[in-house]
Every structure is written in structure tokens, then in C-alpha cells.
């Protein structure tokens, strides 16, 4: 079934419009079998819409959807080997926890005792043992979410779509469920297409991250690629807090910003091209003023657990710096950045 080098789902030139407004602008995406893919992007960028196209709940205005090499544009949702954990859970209010989770298996006419064992397993997996008879209306938000995950997962689909499945959980349970979902995905060998707007979640769980903005895909890559080699300032900023400052590429390996020239490792830009310079807060080193490439005043310090987050004002720019050393507010400090930590990007031209 999986020809096309193990590609299981493929979106080709998908365009979606609502009321004349383009919500998805020609999405092209190949998803490999057994892969954990995350769609990451700000609210309203079209993540849920993309999932709805794959699930079959929405027809694209143009473009094709392929599943294992077969065009499935006209296949209705109930015939697609795909299950969904919906963003707003969409549990059946007239059924209890057990019957919600058993819904898919009952449709498949699985024997009752087999269903029973499977539901039990699922409940254990999502930490809801003993909740079988509980009415859906009497669950907390996090419990709803876990029932929704169990209800979709129990069918062992080839592809599972998860629309912010952990959004309502507290941090601890969220971390636990992240590990659990990842483990399930690997042991059951199911392709996960996971939607989140939490970049940390995306980076820790995924094999591939797809960064979206305003109905476009900005970048597709491994978490490491996306983090280290963001293609533009938007991705850099979204994937982790960054200092983004305008600069000018003097020549290959030399960039000017904040009124100074810096060595860098980027090349291939036009001479004197206006660029975005991206520097991660943890890549800025605080040094005595004499040794600094830049000099500024500490404006604020916040303790963040592992490190201190400082804002350092150099008059033309406020730098976000992470450091394990605490500096007094109001002191003058110097800052240094290694050439390889200076990321140069073409300015994104808004369409």
C-alpha cells in the first residue's frame, strides 16, 4: 500500500476558501508512514482546516489528497482509515465513558468481551481506570481530552489526527501524556499528525515539524533543523524566543547590525542586502564591558528556574538574554555572540 517511498499521506496544492477568503493557500505536504508530524503555528493559521481535509470533513476548493498513493478526495470520512481527536473533544453526551470509547469497535461488530478488554486497556493507558460508568457530562476538561484520545486510539487507525489533544491538561499530566503518546505512536507504529501551538511540545515529540502561518507552510524539517536553521524570522521567533534585529549584509561572512560589524558564517546574500539577524537569547554571553561587542544596561531580570531572563537595553535595541548568572538591574554589561550563533535571513516579503 505504501508506495511513493513510504509516503502515506500527501497533500497536493490544497486550497481552501471560506466566504471568499483564502484560508489555505496551496498547501503541499508529504507525510511518511509511521512518522510523528506536528503542525505548528499561531491561532487561525489553518491547522485544524488542514486536519479536516485529511479527515474528509471538508472538501478542498482545489487540490488533491492522497492516502497510500490513492486519491481520496471523494472518500467519505467513515471509509478513511484515519481517526481524529477533535479540538473540542466532540464526545457523545448521551453515552458514558465506556460506550464512548467502545463506539468505533461496536460499529466494527467486534465481540463484546473483546471490546471490554480493549476498553480496559485504553482506560489504563489514559489513566482513567474505574471511570467506565461515568457520564460524559460529569468529567473535567482534562478527562474529556483523555477519553477523546482513547476513543480514537482504540480503533488502531493507520493515521491518527490529534488537534491540540493536551491543551486542557496541567503541566505535569501534559508531560506524562506527551511521553505516553510518543510511546504509543512508536509501539503501535501509527502515523500521528499532531496539531499544537506549543513549540516546546512540537520540538520534543515530533520527527518532523511543519511550521504554518496564514495558510502557508513556512518550513518543514526535523525539530533540530527547525530550531537551528529557521528559514525566516517568523519561524525563528515562533520556535523559540529570539532577538530579531534588522541588519545589512556587508559581504559574505560579514554583517552589520546595532551599529557594529560582526563576523558570521552566512554567505550568498546580495551585497548590502537588508536582512533579518536572529540571535537566540541563550547564545548571548554576558561579559565585562571592555570585552563586549555590544554594551548595554540591564533593564530587568526574571528568575526562570534554570536560568535568569534579562532584558538588556543598548539604546537602539532591547536584547533578551538567558544566563545562569544574575546581573543587578541598572548595571552596565557587555555582550558577545559567536559567529556561528548569528543567523542571517532574507526579509520575508508579505504577500
Amino acid at each position: 500500500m505504501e508506495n511513493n517511498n513510504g509516503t502515506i499521506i500527501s497533500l497536493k496544492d490544497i486550497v481552501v476558501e471560506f466566504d471568499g477568503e483564502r484560508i489555505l493557500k496551496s498547501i503541499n505536504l508529504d507525510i511518511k508512514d509511521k512518522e510523528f508530524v506536528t503542525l505548528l503555528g499561531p491561532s487561525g493559521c489553518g491547522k485544524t482546516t488542514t486536519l479536516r481535509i485529511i479527515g474528509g470533513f471538508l472538501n478542498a476548493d482545489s487540490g488533491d489528497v492522497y492516502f497510500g498513493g490513492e486519491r481520496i478526495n471523494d472518500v467519505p470520512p467513515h471509509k478513511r482509515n484515519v481517526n481524529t481527536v477533535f479540538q473540542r473533544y466532540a464526545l457523545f453526551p448521551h453515552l458514558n465513558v465506556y460506550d464512548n470509547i467502545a463506539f468505533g469497535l461496536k460499529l466494527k461488530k467486534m465481540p463484546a468481551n473483546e471490546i471490554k478488554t480493549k476498553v480496559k486497556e485504553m482506560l489504563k493507558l489514559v489513566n482513567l481506570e474505574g471511570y467506565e460508568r461515568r457520564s460524559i457530562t460529569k468529567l473535567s476538561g482534562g478527562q474529556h481530552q483523555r477519553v477523546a484520545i482513547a476513543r480514537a486510539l482504540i480503533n488502531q487507525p493507520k493515521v491518527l489526527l490529534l488537534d491540540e489533544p493536551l491543551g486542557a491538561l496541567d503541566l505535569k499530566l501534559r508531560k506524562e501524556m506527551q511521553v505516553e503518546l510518543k510511546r504509543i505512536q512508536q509501539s503501535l507504529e501509527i502515523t500521528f499528525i499532531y496539531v499544537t501551538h506549543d513549540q516546546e511540545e512540537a520540538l520534543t515529540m515530533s520527527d518532523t515539524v511543519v511550521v504554518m502561518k496564514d495558510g502557508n507552510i513556512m518550513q518543514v524539517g526535523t525539530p533540530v533543523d527547525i530550531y537551528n536553521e529557521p528559514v525566516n524570522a517568523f519561524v525563528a521567533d515562533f520556535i523559540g524566543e529570539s532577538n530579531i534585529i534588522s541588519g545589512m549584509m556587508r559581504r559574505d561572512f560579514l554583517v552589520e547590525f546595532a551599529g557594529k560589524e560582526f563576523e558570521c558564517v552566512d554567505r550568498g546574500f546580495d551585497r548590502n542586502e537588508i536582512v533579518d539577524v536572529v540571535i537566540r537569547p541563550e547564545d548571548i554571553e554576558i561579559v565585562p564591558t571592555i570585552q563586549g561587542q555590544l554594551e548595554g544596561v540591564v533593564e530587568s531580570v526574571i528568575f526562570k528556574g534554570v536560568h535568569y531572563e534579562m532584558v538588556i537595553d543598548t539604546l537602539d535595541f532591547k536584547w533578551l538574554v538567558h544566563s545562569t548568572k544574575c546581573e543587578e538591574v541598572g548595571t552596565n554589561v557587555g555582550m558577545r555572540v559567536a559567529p556561528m550563533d548569528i543567523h542571517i535571513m532574507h526579509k520575508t516579503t508579505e504577500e
Partner: protein
Amino acid sequence: MKSKLAAAPYLIWMAVFTIVPLGLVFYYGLTDQDGNFSIDNLSRMGMYTNIFFRSIWLAVIATVVCLIIAYPLAFILSRMDTHKQGTMLLLVMLPMWMNFLLRTYAWMTLLETNGVINKILGFVGLGPFEMINTQGAIVLGMVYNYVPFMILPLYSVMTKIDNSVIEAAQDLGSNSRQVLMKVIIPLSKPGIMTGITMVFVPSVSTFIISRMLGGGSNMLIGDLIEQQILGTSYNLNLGASISIVLMIFIFMIMAVMNQFDDEEMEGMII
């Protein structure tokens, strides 16, 4: 304390307009013309078995027809854009703004042997058909007059069914029929129950529809009661007795209805 005080007007209202009249019905039903306790009138009910049976039968048919018409309509309505829903609902309600008698008279002129429908059919060489003064005409009158009472409660529960729940059912492998049986019908059950009550009760006790569209030969319980109380055979006590029996019937039928749980409901409709 406050809430009790606030409830007082309603309690008084209920006492004056529900409990007292009910008491009167029972009083008259269980006494004879001289005011002595008697169940003579109740024991004469056997005479009217035919009429009871016909009333209930026609009301059941009318209720089922209303449900069949209203259910898909209410569902389609509930899935429309919100602003379109308003307009469509208005269209559903519009006939109700006209006087009940007027609407039923309109059907009389339509259905008459030399009425509008037969005339039109005559042009294409059909008929004339015997339409007025039949049981079919009575059912038609009931359906026409009471179908909004089925649509409204159904519509109001169906608007509360989120589209994503329907999508979830499809996602888990339900085809359209299974979505209907396993999700939409169970979730709209309260509306079905209310709608059935609101159509069945007025249908089973109507007398105007049967008199105007059913002719003399299709007497219903409503006609019978009306005859005892306002009509020729003036006998308040008998009229009250019949009312009591009718009430008991309605009560029993409703009790049976409410016994259906989801499983039986499914079986009933398949």
C-alpha cells in the same frame, strides 16, 4: 425563603386553574345528576369503545405522520446558517398566526366533492374523489394544524447537537444511517417525546377538526364530550366521566412512551 415567596403566584395560579378544575371534573364524573356518588357513568364507557378506538388510532396516525414530516425538516433547519434559520422558522410558524377555524374551513373548501382540488383534477380528467368526510381528511386536518408543535421542539433540541459530534461519529466509522440511529436520534429524544405529546394530546381530544372534515360518521371522543356538555344530549356527568377515561388513556400512553430507552427506540424506528 425568597424563592418560596416568588413561587407563590404560580402556585396560586396552578391551584385555581389546574387543580380546582381537575377536582370538578372528577366530582362530576363520579356522581349522578342528583349529586350522589355513582360510577354508573364510568361503567357505561363500554358503549363508546369504537369512538375511543377511532380517536386514538387517528391521533396515533397523525402523530406518526407529523414526526415523519417534521424530523427531517427540523434537522435540515438546525444545520442551516443562523440567519436563514430565522426566516425558515417564521415560515413554519406563519400558518399558526391565522385562526384555527379559518384554516380548517379552508381545507373544507379544498376537499369538497365540488371543491378546488376535485375541480383541478377534473380538468385532467380525474376524479371526482371522495375526500371530505373521511378519516383521511381528519388526519390531514390534524397534521396540518399540529405539525408546527412537532417541528419546534425537535428543532430546539437539534440546534444543540454540535456538528463536531456528528463528525466524530463519521470519523469512528458510522455511515449516514448509523449516525442517525446512534447519535442524532438518541440526542434528539427529548424533542421527540415533547413533540409527540404536543401533537398527540390535542389530536386525540379534538372535536372541531373531526366535525368539519369528518362528517357525521366519524365521531371522535372530543365530539362525544362536547355533545354531553354543550350539545343535544346534555349530561355533564357523563361528559366528565368520558374526560376522566380519556385522561387515563393519555396518561398511560405517555407513561409507555417514556419507558422506551435508546435501544428500544432504535428497534422501533428500524
